[in-house]
C-alpha cells in the first residue's frame, strides 16, 4: 500500500511539473492584465524546439534553453497584437495556439518517433532521498522538477516581496495609477507576456525531453488549456499554483490507479475538467468566492495610454 501511495505521489509530482511551469507563466501574464490563451501553442512549440535541439546537440539543457527562448519569442506576437494594437486578447490567444501547434507540427515532422539518446536522468539527492515516501517523491526526481519548484518559489517571491512584483500586479489592476507613478505600462506588459511564453516553452520542453522523451504532434494534449483553468483555480497566486498543479497532476495519475475499481476509464478521464468546473462553481456560488475569483481588474482589456 505504501508503495502505491509513494508511486502515486512520485507520479503526481512529475505530471504536475509542466502544469506548474505553465501556470506560473500564465499567472505572470494575467497579473499584468494580459490573458494569453495561447499556452497550448507556446507549450507545443517549446516541446518541439526542446526536442529538436536536444536531439541534434545531444544536450538537454540546450534544448531547455531553446524551448524557453522559442516560447518567449512566439509570445511577442501576442504582446504586440494585444498591447500595441489593442486587439481582442481572446482571439489573439486562440490564433497563437493555432500558430504554435502548426509551426511545431511543421518543424517537428522529421523528428516524430525518433528516440532521444541523451536524457535527463533523475537526480538522487543524498541522504534526503532515503527518507521514506517523501525521499522518493521530493528528492529523487528529474532536474525539471527541481527547476520548476525553484522557479515557482522565485515567482512567488518576486510577486510578493519585491518591487517588480508590486509593479506587475499594479499594471494588471490599475494601469492608469501605475502610469501616473512613472511606470511604463506597455513595457511591463510585454515583458510579462514574454515571461509567460518562456515558462510555457519550458513546460513543453519538459514534456518532450523529460516526460515522454519523444516528440509527436499534439503531445501537449490539452495541458495548455488546463494551465489556463489552473490560473483561475490558483486565484492568480503563485503559491496556490503549486497546490493546483499537483492536485491536477494527481488527478491525472490517479485515473489509472482507480481503473481496477470498475469505474469507466472515460468517466475518470473527465475528472480534471469536472474538478475545474466544480471549483469555479464553488467560488461562484458564494459572494466571498466571487470576490476571490475576480481576476486582475483590467484582465483582457486593452490599455490606452493617456485615455481619460
Amino acid at each position, binding site marked *: 500500500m505504501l508503495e502505491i501511495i509513494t508511486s502515486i505521489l512520485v507520479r503526481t509530482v512529475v505530471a504536475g511539473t509542466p502544469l506548474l511551469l505553465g501556470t506560473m507563466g500564465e499567472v505572470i501574464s494575467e497579473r499584468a492584465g494580459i490573458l494569453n490563451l495561447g499556452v497550448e501553442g507556446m507549450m507545443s512549440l517549446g516541446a518541439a524546439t526542446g526536442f529538436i535541439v536536444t536531439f541534434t546537440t545531444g544536450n538537454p539543457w540546450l534544448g531547455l534553453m531553446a524551448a524557453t527562448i522559442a516560447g518567449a519569442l512566439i509570445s511577442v506576437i501576442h504582446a504586440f497584437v494585444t498591447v500595441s494594437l489593442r486587439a481582442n486578447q481572446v482571439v489573439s490567444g486562440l490564433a497563437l495556439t493555432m500558430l504554435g501547434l502548426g509551426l511545431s507540427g511543421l518543424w517537428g515532422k522529421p523528428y516524430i518517433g525518433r528516440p532521444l539518446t541523451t536524457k535527463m536522468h533523475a537526480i538522487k539527492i543524498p541522504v534526503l532521498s532515503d527518507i521514506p515516501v517523501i525521499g522518493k517523491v521530493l528528492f529523487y526526481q528529474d532536474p525539471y522538477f527541481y527547476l520548476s519548484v525553484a522557479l515557482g518559489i522565485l515567482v512567488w517571491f518576486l510577486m510578493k*516581496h*519585491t*518591487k*517588480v512584483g*508590486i*509593479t506587475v*500586479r*499594479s499594471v494588471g*489592476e*490599475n494601469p*492608469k*495609477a*501605475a502610469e*501616473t*507613478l*512613472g*511606470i511604463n505600462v506597455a513595457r511591463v506588459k510585454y515583458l510579462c507576456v514574454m515571461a509567460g511564453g518562456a515558462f510555457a516553452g519550458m513546460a513543453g520542453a519538459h514534456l518532450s525531453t523529460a516526460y515522454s522523451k519523444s516528440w509527436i504532434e499534439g503531445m501537449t494534449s490539452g495541458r495548455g488549456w488546463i494551465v489556463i483553468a489552473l490560473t483561475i483555480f490558483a486565484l492568480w497566486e503563485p503559491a496556490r499554483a503549486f497546490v493546483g498543479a499537483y492536485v491536477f497532476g494527481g488527478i491525472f495519475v490517479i485515473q489509472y490507479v482507480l481503473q481496477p475499481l470498475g469505474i469507466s476509464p472515460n468517466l475518470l478521464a473527465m475528472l480534471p475538467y469536472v474538478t475545474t468546473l466544480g471549483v469555479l462553481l464553488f467560488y461562484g456560488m458564494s459572494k466571498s468566492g466571487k470576490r476571490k475569483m*475576480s481576476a486582475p*481588474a483590467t484582465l483582457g482589456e486593452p490599455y490606452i495610454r493617456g485615455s481619460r
Partner: protein
Amino acid sequence: MKRIEKLEMKGICKSFVGVRANRNVDLTIEKGDILGLLGENGAGKTTLMNILYGLYMPDEGQVHVNGQPLHLKSPKDSMKAGIGMIHQHFMLIQKHTVLENIALGYADAPFFFPQKYMRKRIEEYSRKFGLEVDPDKKIWELSAGEQQRVEILKALLRNADLLIMDEPTSVLTPLEADELFEILRKMIKEGHSVILISHKLEEIISICNRVMVMRKGEVTGAAEIKDVTKVDLARMMIGREISASYEKADIRPGEPVLEISSLSVNSDQGLPIVKNITMTVSRNEILGIAGVSGNGQRELVEAVTGLRRSEEGTVSLQGREVTNKSARTIHNLGINHVPEERIKFGTVANLQLFENSVLKKHHEKPFSKNMLMNYPLIKNHTDSIIEKFHVDAASINVPVKNLSGGNIQKLILGREIASEPSLLIAAHPTYGLDVGAAEYIRKELISARDRGGAVLLVSEDLEELFQVCDRIAVMFEGKIMGIVDPSNCDIDEIGLMMAGTSFEGKGETN
C-alpha cells in the same frame, strides 16, 4: 531639497476642442497657505490643477516656483518639483495593501522586501501628520477617509510640498472630513501648502485661509477668508444676473404624474445617499433639481427610472406604484430618460445612428412587431429626429461614435422627447454643449412641457434652471433643502441651500 516657498501660475490659457477651459488665469500660493478653489462643475478648476500637476500642457502661461520657471511635461516633473495631487477618484489599487500601493513606483524603496522599508517610512509619516492607517489592510477594506489618507501619505512620501486635493470631502462622512482638516492643519504647520478644490462654501470658510473663485474658465474673485462671508462667496460663484426666461405658455400645472414619497436610496458603496425624499411632478410642469453634483441626484434619477433599487418609500407614476419595477416596465408606463452619462448609458457607440434612435423603445410598436424590427420605419423616424432636432450627421448609417457630443445629446433628447412621454427625466442635458445647442435643448424641454408633459430636470447650471423651470428643488446631501419658485426667489437663497442651509417657509408652492 528646496521647498516650495511660493508658487505662481501666470496667464494660464487652455482650450479643448471648441471649449475654453481656462482663460488667463493667475494663481499664487505660498508656504503655509490653504487655498480654496471654488466654482461650479465645469468652471475650469480641475483643468487648472491638471495643468499644475503636469497632466495637461497649457496653451499659454507659465508656472514659477520660488521665482524660477518650471516646465511640467508629465506628472513625473511636477512630482519632482514637490507637487502632489489627489484626484477625486483615488488612484489606488483596490486589491493591494496600503504598503504595496505606496511602494508602487517609489524610487527609494529597495528591490527586495520593499514593504518592510515602506512600513518604517509610513509609520514615521503617520506619526508626524496624524495619518492613521493600517499598512497591511487591503484598500477595499478601508473606508473612503482611510483611502484618502493613503493617497495623502503617498503624496507626502514623494516629497509633495504642495498638495492639490480635488473635492476631498465629497466621499467623506462629516466626521472623516473633520479628521481630514485636522491632518491638513498639521501639514501646514510642517510648512506644506494645500490647494483645495471644492464647491462647498462651509468647508472653504472653515479650513482655508485664502479663496479663489472661478466661473467659466475665469477667475471671478480672490480674497482672504477673513474678509468674506458665505453669501459673498455664493454670489461670486453663481454671481450674475439671470438672463430672461424662455417664453413659456402660461399653463397651470395639471394632475400629478410622478409622486415620490419618503424615498431612500443607497449609493454604490451601500451608504444612504438619497434620504427620505418626497416630491411631485405634474403635467405641464418642469421641476428642476438644483444642487452640487454628488448630493444624490444621480441615484434619485436611477431609482425612479428602475436602474437602482430603492430602500424605502414609494415611486408612483400616474397613480400606479412602480417602486423597484424593472426599467422596461417603468419606461412602458411613459417615463423617458435622458441619462447623465450619455456615451456610457445613452447610446451604443458602435451601432449606427438609426439603431441608436430607438434604443429603449426598440421593443415597442411600431418599431418592432412580432419580434421583428421595422427598420424602414425606424430609418424614417431617425430622419425626422435628425431633421427636427438638427442633429448634424453625415448619414443615419454611421456609427454614433462618429458624432460629436452635442449631436449625440440632441439625438438622445430627440429620441426621448419624440415619443411624447408623460414624464421626461433629463439629467444634465446641456452639460458640455455649445451655447446654440444648449439653447435649442432648453426650448425643446419647454415645448415638451407646453404640450402637456411633465419634466424633471436635473442640472447644475442655475441659470438654466431659472430659465426653464416652474419650480426648483435644491438637493443637498440626499435631502431636499427647499423648493422655490424661480420667478419669485432670490439667487442667494438658492446658493445658501446648495451650501446646506435649510430654508423654512417657502417650501412647496402647490
